[in-house]
């Protein structure tokens, strides 16, 4: 069965979600990346979109203008979430955001933020930009357009947006960190195997 969350998301909604789960999202998501994080956290500017209980997407989309003040999503894919690591804990605390969507894992500070304020980080499988764009029903608003197309806050109404793989849950589990330990262990084993066969310099 598809697990679908709808914004605004409550603490209760996230209780039974665990790292490694696959979920989908209904409601709204706003694209929000490097400079928007910096403006809020470093320069203390208020985010022009209220994301309390909501979702943000670390992404820089391609949008097409269809009329005055009306835009269409052409292509949107996640960007590396780790770049937002130094801001995300404070971002969660200050905005009350519940679902953060991006690419790759995030670090311990974000995990702490997710546990303390009940939020999750998810990964949208990258390279699937057309699929993601078709899951955006409408761009309802655009803010901070002075930042240019990739960095503008695009407020999107979404329908079964996903699949989203949960990478950090509210219980402090971190899928990518767990995998990394496993991957490194296997790598060391494989190294020992391979070097037996590549002693070409004798």
């Amino acid at each position, binding site marked *: 069965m598809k697990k679908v969350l709808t914004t605004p998301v409550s603490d209760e909604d996230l209780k039974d979600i665990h790292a*490694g789960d*696959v979920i989908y999202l209904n409601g709204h998501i706003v694209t929000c990346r490097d400079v928007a994080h910096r403006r809020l956290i470093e320069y203390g500017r208020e985010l022009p979109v209220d994301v309390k209980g909501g979702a943000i997407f670390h992404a*820089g*989309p*391609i949008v097409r203008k269809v009329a005055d003040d009306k835009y269409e999503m*052409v*292509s*949107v*894919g996640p960007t*590396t979430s*780790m770049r937002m690591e130094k801001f995300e804990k404070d971002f969660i605390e200050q905005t009350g955001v519940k679902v953060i969507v991006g*690419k*790759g894992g995030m670090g311990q500070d974000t995990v702490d933020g997710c546990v303390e304020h009940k939020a999750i980080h998810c*990964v949208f*499988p*990258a*390279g*699937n*930009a*057309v*699929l993601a*764009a*078709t899951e955006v029903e409408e761009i309802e608003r655009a803010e901070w357009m002075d930042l240019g197309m990739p960095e503008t806050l695009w407020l999107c109404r979404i329908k079964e947006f996903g*699949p989203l*793989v949960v990478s950090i849950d509210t219980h402090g589990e971190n*899928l*990518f960190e767990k*995998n*990394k330990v*496993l*991957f*490194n262990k*296997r*790598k060391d*084993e*494989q*190294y020992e*195997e*391979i*070097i037996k*066969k*590549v*002693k*070409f*310099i004798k």
Partner: protein
Amino acid sequence: MDKNDQIQNMTETVAKFIKYFGKILPDDVQAKLKELSDAETSPMAKLTYETMFKNQELAKELDRPCCQDTGVIQFFARVGTKFPLIDELSKIFEEGVLLATEMAPLRHNSVQTFDEYNTGTNVGYRTPSIDFEIVPNSDELDVDIYMAGGGCTLPGKAMVLMPGAGYEAVTKFVLDQMTSYGLNACPPLLVGVGVATSVETAAMLSKKALMRKIGSRNPNEKAAMMELELERGINAIGLGPQGFSGENSVMGVHIENAARHPSTIGVAVNTGCWSHRRGNIVFHSDLSYTITSHKEAEL
């Protein structure tokens, strides 16, 4: 056709082909993804592959680039000395990129270094990158064209090892890149390894290794064996699609090599992502062409 028309025609063909392989993956990549998908057992990995296939169908149907990062365009050309438009080729490639940027449309991915502004055209100083190999006594042009995305370019690394460290150190060098940067480069990856004298010789070979058809083998028996060993080993790490973990990690490992200085081993690694957008097209002397990478391609 007069020469200007020929140039115009060929430029348009190059542009249309870039647009085409920016939404449709080459046959060998499609087949390999299918094979890797079938081998997965976990629902998360299976679903990730299903998502990829759905995205590729949508890209074709809606006529849009399949990944938003359409990369920097790179050309690897083997040009016959008797190819009729040999003098115009650089210009044709550059104009082709300009045209494709509007047609596809491609994302603007060319930032002038030091002056640090985006040209907005995908053409900049020494970009698109063009590499020529001269083929004596031939009247054909055989060219690989590639979209180098940011995510899959990031794991690239080159260094010079001491021979005492041997191919054991080459192995470690490649494996280390897989579990660090490779993880975020949208696996399953295609891994190119260059083994030569210096950083630039190894690096160029590691990129050219990515232009080879998946599953092709280095003609040297030992190098071919090492390709298979690395493939087996990296797959056993189990990065899975998108690094979520799974049964495999790579679409393949290709090694390209050159003789080395007795005192050095130059080694380099380059990666391609699951959305490995490369095309091969051969222009004949009458400027008709054959596309070898995509059997069903119609421009």
